[in-house]
């Protein structure tokens, strides 16, 4: 278990805190075994392509907070992709009860060469004042960058001074891209800042409120939890600063993706006394059953959980059976971040598909809560058997292209932007679902099963694309082992 220390301004990156890695190739059971025996070693690469950055993952935990403002402390390019979160906020509000979503307030201190020499702290202080004057935000978040980190600006000091001056929380988030190879460290950095500065100790408890750490998936929990006499408190997209402050009053915290919410769950438990659920998220039948039962146990709603599960079984099992029949023997490949990748593997195998291989971005041997029962990969292996070809690929496109070219599955399931193109170029029906709630529970199996059938059936577009695709990869590379550039431990 990692110890959450909210007195420190920064949280350690995942490599150091959890022993997470970005390179592995072998059986899934070996990876789980190594993790259990403490023998998980990192394998670097001699060739690498562009990765993601902690700063954008940190930004994604704060930009969608309704009444906040975000400052990127760095050159203007370090917030280049943030407008995508502004887009998400506008278009997904309707699925989350925010009927009139407002413009996101996103700023850059726009550091230049002179600042590299003389420091950017002064500019940051002035920017915070300007941002507050312009936005009257309820909280101002500062995400750091490689430049601000290397030149050593005192971001925490500036933030504290500004907070005193303007009277709203000014939250420094330390997420320099170079600090971690695992850009999900940015989630942890964002939540660390939120837990330090926004969450307040509970005065009263709200025994029907359950914290749900998620992205911007459609609100399915109001209905599901409602049937158990509970209600969701979504963290942190579409929440308000006030709502986050009261998240300590919840009776439990659940994760839809432990890769995302690991640290916030642990912080809420260790520092604010909100217990975190310690079984994997409800994808596939065994995990769905375990998850709802555990939630029932934690909230004193055992009977309600049983009723809900029975209703769901009755309603969806017949259709799931039909889908299994039609999907039997189909082969799939999964590429995704760690925990949601494990979820997709469970969904596919529950539906009777054979998962030929998986290209998962990184691996956390355990999450921050340190519980073996929460290890989604282990649960998937135990529930459905081993996966012979499991790669931790660090989102390296060249490895994925190589693997897909060999495996030629009937379908590629991807979770992240940029990973679907090669399914299409190779003529493989490819499916990316943005909504992380889409595959949850019994209904999620029906959702996915129907979409998979639809995508496999309607392959005209990818078949045509494959005929005309331009391939920058060499024949030499496609003939090598996909692990050719993976270094030894």
């Amino acid at each position, binding site marked *: 278990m990692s110890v959450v220390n909210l007195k420190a301004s920064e949280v350690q990156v995942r490599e150091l805190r959890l022993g997470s890695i970005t390179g592995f190739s072998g059986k899934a059971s070996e990876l789980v075994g190594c993790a259990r025996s403490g023998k998980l070693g990192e394998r670097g690469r*001699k*060739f*690498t*392509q*562009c*990765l*993601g*950055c902690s*700063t*954008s993952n940190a930004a994604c935990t704060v930009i969608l907070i309704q009444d906040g403002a975000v400052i990127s402390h*760095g*050159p*203007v*390019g*370090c*917030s*280049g*992709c943030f*407008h*995508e979160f*502004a*887009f998400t906020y*506008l278009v997904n509000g309707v699925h989350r009860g925010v009927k009139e979503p*407002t*413009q996101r*307030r*996103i*700023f*850059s*201190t*726009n550091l*230049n*060469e002179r*600042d590299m020499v003389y420091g950017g702290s002064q*500019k940051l202080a*002035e*920017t915070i*004042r*300007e941002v507050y004057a*312009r936005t009257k935000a309820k909280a101002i978040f500062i995400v750091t960058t*490689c*430049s601000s980190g*290397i*030149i050593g600006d005192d971001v925490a000091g500036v933030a504290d001074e500004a907070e005193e001056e303007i009277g709203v929380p000014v939250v420094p988030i330390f997420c320099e*891209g*170079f600090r*971690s*190879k695992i850009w999900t460290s940015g989630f942890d950095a964002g939540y660390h800042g939120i837990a330090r500065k926004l969450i307040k100790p509970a005065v009263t408890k709200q025994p029907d409120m359950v914290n749900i750490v998620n992205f911007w998936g459609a609100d399915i929990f109001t209905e599901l939890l409602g049937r158990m006499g509970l209600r969701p408190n979504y963290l942190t997209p579409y929440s308000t600063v006030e709502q986050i402050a009261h998240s300590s009053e919840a009776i439990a915290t659940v994760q839809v993706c432990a890769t995302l919410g690991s640290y916030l769950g642990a912080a809420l438990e260790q520092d604010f006394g909100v217990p975190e659920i310690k079984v994997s998220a409800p994808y596939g039948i065994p995990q769905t059953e375990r998850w709802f039962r555990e939630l029932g146990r934690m909230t004193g709603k055992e009977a309600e959980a049983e009723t809900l599960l029975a209703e769901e079984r009755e309603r969806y099992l017949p259709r799931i059976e039909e889908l299994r029949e039609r999907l039997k023997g189909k082969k799939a490949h999964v590429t995704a971040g760690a925990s949601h990748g494990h979820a997709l593997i469970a969904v596919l195998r529950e539906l009777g598909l054979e998962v030929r291989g998986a290209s998962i971005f990184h691996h956390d041997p355990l999450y921050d809560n340190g519980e073996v029962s929460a290890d989604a990969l282990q649960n998937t292996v135990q529930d459905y058997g081993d996966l012979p070809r499991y790669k931790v690929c660090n*989102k390296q*496109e*060249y490895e994925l292209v190589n693997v897909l070219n060999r495996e030629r599955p009937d379908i590629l399931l991807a979770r992240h932007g*940029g*990973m679907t*193109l090669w399914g299409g170029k190779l003529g493989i029906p490819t499916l990316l679902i943005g909504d992380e709630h889409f595959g949850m529970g019994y209904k999620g199996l029906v959702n996915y099963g129907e979409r998979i059938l639809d995508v496999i059936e309607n392959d005209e577009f990818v078949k045509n694309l494959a005929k005309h695709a331009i391939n*920058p*990869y*060499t024949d*030499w*590379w496609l003939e090598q082992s996909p692990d050719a*550039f993976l270094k030894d431990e």
Partner: protein
Amino acid sequence: MSTVIEQERYTCAIGAMQSVVAIPHALPILHSGPGCGTMVAGFFERSSGYAGGGTAPCTNFSESEVVFGGEEKLRSVIESSYKVLKSDLQVVLTGCTADLVGDDTARIVREFRESGRPIVFAETAGFKSSNYVSHSTVVNAIVDQFVGDADPSLAKDEKLVNVFASIPYQDPFWKGNLSELKRLLEGIGLKANILFGLESGGVAEWKTIPRAGFNIIVSPWYGLPIVEHLKEKYGQSYFRFPYIPIGGNETTRFLREVAAFANLDKAVVEAFIEREEEAFYMEIQSLATFLLEFRYGLPSWTQILHDSSYVLGMSKFLLHEVGIVPKELFITDGVPEEYQAEIRSILDATSDKKKFPLSFQPDAGAAQEVIRKTEHSGRGLLIGSGWEKALAKEKGLDFLSAASPSPFRLVLTTGYLGYRGGLRLIEDIYDRVLGTYA
């Protein structure tokens, strides 16, 4: 002084990796932090081209490279790039991390070049400049390290010109604009190297840069270091047109000025202009009935947030050829002070009857605040980036997304430059306007 930018409309120096992506079969290699390539791809969206986005090799600086330097990692990534990816030209671009820790990237790249590889190095740390500036850095690096010295045994081809105009991807219409420029210049008897996009001849075309008789630049300020450099290096003079020519008046002016500069055959030039103008004004004449008679409301004025080239080009075009009057104008590309007076005077010359309120404002959030407080009678049109969509809704304005970033609009090969671009701009504006009815 605070230099805060809200809602950025351009990105940092390493954004010029897109200028490499725009050269057919060229490969950007990033010696940078892990997120730089993804940030650039996220800013521009749908911009991966041949080998940009997640395909581009990158050293992905980690803590150990920050402490010990990343030169060995760079060497390994370059070596492997040759094994894994096919490319005709490689451009190594540095990010903040590589430049701050002081890696000698130039030396490593030189080693590969000296072993016969077509590889180039450009210093593009984000803190150095915007991508508007570093586009020139990258082009000049390719000229110096790949194109090389002029072959003295080959005479200049007086009819061949190198054209520098739209910055790939930063200008969402770069493909269409460059293609129209090529068509127009060929129409008046020149041959044009447009250098970017599939209508260029790729790296083989770059190799012919020294043979051009002269250069053309269409820009208020960015790109000038390129033509200045070519002047010095190859003795090529350049003709400059300081904004994007859109529609009949300005395209004809552009072509006549080029023709005068290059001493082209007047008969050929005028014959081409006549044909083009006829096609253009025939459409405008048919359109005039609609513009004058449509009784349900059309925009009569516009506010524009765009870069300097578009603000000038669109203002001139919309006022004179469409009858939409420019109101508040915001130039968002961070124009260096020394060019601002000229831009202002070009705008002032747009009309001898009225002046237009112009601000140089890279902090587009501040520009939006100004617009939010304006009141004009009649129906208005807001032209800007995707950021303006919500503002247009709030203010009840018609909205055309025409600047980066552009999350609400897909642009493939559309262009706004030239006679054809002018017609397309009209189509796009009234498509949005008519789309609001019923």
